[in-house]
């Protein structure tokens, strides 16, 4: 079996765009997806914990913050899904032969994502729309929704790691063709997942801090408190990330890790830049935490985190490339760009964003 690893052939239909364009859109839309995804994933837990503290200590601040998060979460999830559709599209066109195969092996758990998502999402709406009526029960609902949402992330990690390891497929398939597998045997799955989960707490903490920044105009004491509370989440999660991130790095196959340790100059540079940015943002946030006027430190920190995420999205792509090196040869694609449709896509994208901008402007102006 080892000598004959079954990897599906490339689709006989030509690629409708150059690889670089599809790759760029894959990475760009993945970046856009990851931001609301982090807010939703971490935000659910932050809301649950904050609400719980608020009810226990009868703290007006905590309850008010949880209420704000409850209002935001459904919208954030909607954009997680909407912006997630695009990378799901582009990954299929570039990496379909890997993605479909690993999906089939995990078919039932993979398909359960849909059910988990519907349940989790309606739970978040319930939390938002029935805040008053539910009282204590809403803690159970928001926590259950957050856990279901986190489970979805875990299934994604399972599939997207299995997709990178074709050498495992045949044994799994011939042992059980019913799509009942998970990918626990891979040592990178758990640390990779925790790496994402930990990051989401940090990013959700930033959302809280930004809410505080906005609320500061009306209620400076509350705003100040929310900023510090949010930054506390960020700082703790980022410190925890030092451990989780290192674990993930160590769990990678030696050959893959080596790329970021000097074997490849570009990969090492991007990875180093990500580390520098995240450390710098940590420093900024700590200063912001103690500062009496944290606005610009917070904003600088957020820009640095955005840079970190961009670098990490690129690092992730390099990891994928390293795993698939033996199986994926870009030069084998036959490319026949559908130029007219591509141009139309970009025109409509500008138009669509314009329409969304118009609506947002109207809403903001009506305040």
């Amino acid at each position, binding site marked *: 079996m080892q000598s004959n690893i079954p990897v599906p052939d490339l689709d006989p239909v030509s690629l409708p765009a150059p690889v670089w364009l599809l790759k760029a859109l894959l990475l760009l839309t993945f970046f856009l997806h990851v931001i609301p995804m982090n807010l939703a994933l971490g935000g659910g837990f932050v809301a649950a914990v904050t609400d719980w503290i608020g009810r226990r200590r009868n703290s007006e601040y905590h309850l008010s913050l949880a209420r704000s998060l409850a209002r935001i979460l459904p919208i954030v999830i909607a954009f997680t*899904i909407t912006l997630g559709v695009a990378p799901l599209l582009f990954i299929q066109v570039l990496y379909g032969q890997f993605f479909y195969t690993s999906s089939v092996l995990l078919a039932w758990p993979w398909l359960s994502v849909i059910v988990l998502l519907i349940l989790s999402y309606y739970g978040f709406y319930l939390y938002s729309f029935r805040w008053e009526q539910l009282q204590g029960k809403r803690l159970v609902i928001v926590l259950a929704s957050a856990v279901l949402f986190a489970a979805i992330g875990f299934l994604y990690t399972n599939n997207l790691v299995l997709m990178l390891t074709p050498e495992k497929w045949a044994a799994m398939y011939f042992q059980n063709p019913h*799509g009942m597998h998970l990918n626990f045997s891979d040592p990178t799955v758990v640390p990779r997942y925790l790496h994402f989960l930990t990051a989401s707490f940090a990013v959700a903490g930033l959302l809280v801090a930004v809410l505080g920044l906005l609320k500061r105009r009306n209620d400076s004491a509350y705003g100040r408190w929310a900023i510090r509370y949010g930054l506390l989440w960020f700082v703790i999660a980022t410190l925890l990330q030092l451990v989780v991130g290192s674990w993930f790095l160590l769990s990678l196959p030696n050959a893959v890790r080596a790329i970021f340790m000097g074997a490849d100059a570009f990969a090492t540079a991007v990875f180093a830049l990500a580390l520098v940015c995240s450390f710098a943002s940590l420093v900024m946030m700590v200063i912001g935490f103690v500062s009496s006027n944290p606005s610009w430190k917070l904003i600088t920190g957020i820009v640095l985190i955005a840079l970190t995420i961009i670098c990490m999205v690129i690092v992730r792509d390099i990891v994928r490339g390293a795993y698939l090196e033996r199986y994926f040869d870009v030069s084998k694609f036959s490319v026949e760009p559908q130029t007219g449709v591509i141009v139309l896509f970009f025109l409509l994208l500008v138009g669509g964003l314009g329409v969304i901008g118009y609506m947002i402007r109207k809403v903001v102006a009506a305040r």
Partner: protein
Amino acid sequence: MNYPIWDVPMIGGGLLIGIISIIHTYVSQFAIGGSLFLVLTERKAYRENDAGMLEYVKRHSRFFLLLTVVFGAITGVGIWFTIGLVHPSATSALIHIFVWGWAIEWITFLVEVASAFVYYYAWDRLDRQTHLRVGWIYFWAAWLSLAIINGILAFMLTPGQWIATRSFWQAFFNPTYSPSLVLRTAVCLALAGLYALLTASRLKQEELRVKLVKYASRWLAPAFFVLPIAGIWYISQIPPLAREISMGGAAAVTIFAGLTILFSIIIFAFVYLGPYREPGKFPFSFSVMFLFMGLLVTGDTEWVREAVRKPYIIYDYMYSNAFLVAHRDQYLREGSLASAKWVLTKEIGDANMMAAGRDIFDLQCQSCHTIDGYNAIRPMVKGWPEDYIDHQLENLQTLKGFMPPFLGTPKERRALARWLASLNGNEATGNIYIGEPSPGSRDLTQGDRDAK
């Protein structure tokens, strides 16, 4: 062939796609019609200065928000997940042909979701004119996503010139694109009307209820006039074989196609006689029944649409079992096992006929048949001896026009026939397969075990 086959015992992958896509189609067509219903009814409320009606629209908008951004959106992604699992080759082909179509649909999806939120959350914040404009954006974005996905769906039945030219535009604006879009749009409006009947009939205030029930019933009128005409137009554009299957060629499909028409007529007749003529006496329970019948018609129609596409998944390009039409001679010459990546049997000898037969079943038949569940094969070959099965397989495409031809060598056909005969214990000849002891080998009785 290229991809591992997901073995779904009892229900089979095809039915799974059917279940999810019928739910999605129903809900999303409903949501598209609903968005137009919202904005037009809002406008009507402003024009007639009817506060009660405006309140009614507002309450609706939350429901449509939840329906659009949660259920519609996620079940839509669900179809993608499911077709990728059940038909990876066909999904891959569609993605390669239409990735930019889908990318454009994604833009409309973004706009639709954003406008649904603004429409719902900014009711009291925006001035009337701007709010109405957002409502129109919501509707047009929703409808455009239908107009795009319709091209891809219609393509699967009528790829038209694409087969020769491989042109995106010819694939998209294929022969059934226009009639199909007209049909679906009319259905969207009718479903919105059915839903509005449900909510309107529950209103407490008599005057408003009568007015809205009557108004809602009018939403079925376009469908009443358009469906027969566009239906004939659609049928005139589908491949002759598909027409034949739906009109007598395959009994089940013909019955279902007939039921679609019958149920539609019943809905129209009852809506006309009930809520339209006597809006004051229209009970809530009837509206539930209408809505349920709407679901039946949707499910039934989508099922027929899928069924008439047989024996292809993408007409003239790919058979239902993912074998490419263009490679037909190669399969006949070299066999199907040779190019299959996910089977353990590569060469057929006397010792492994049964194992090979099961593998060939997985490759060629399993996309439509289960062993004992939906479209089960075991009862179909009951009492058939091996030779007879072999003869049937050899002439499959002429005996059963809606099935793909058997695509393999005579030896492969014989192996499949033997395995099929063994399902009912008709093992005429010896060569009983004894499983290989290697950990990778598949248990031959798997199918039987799963069934129990």
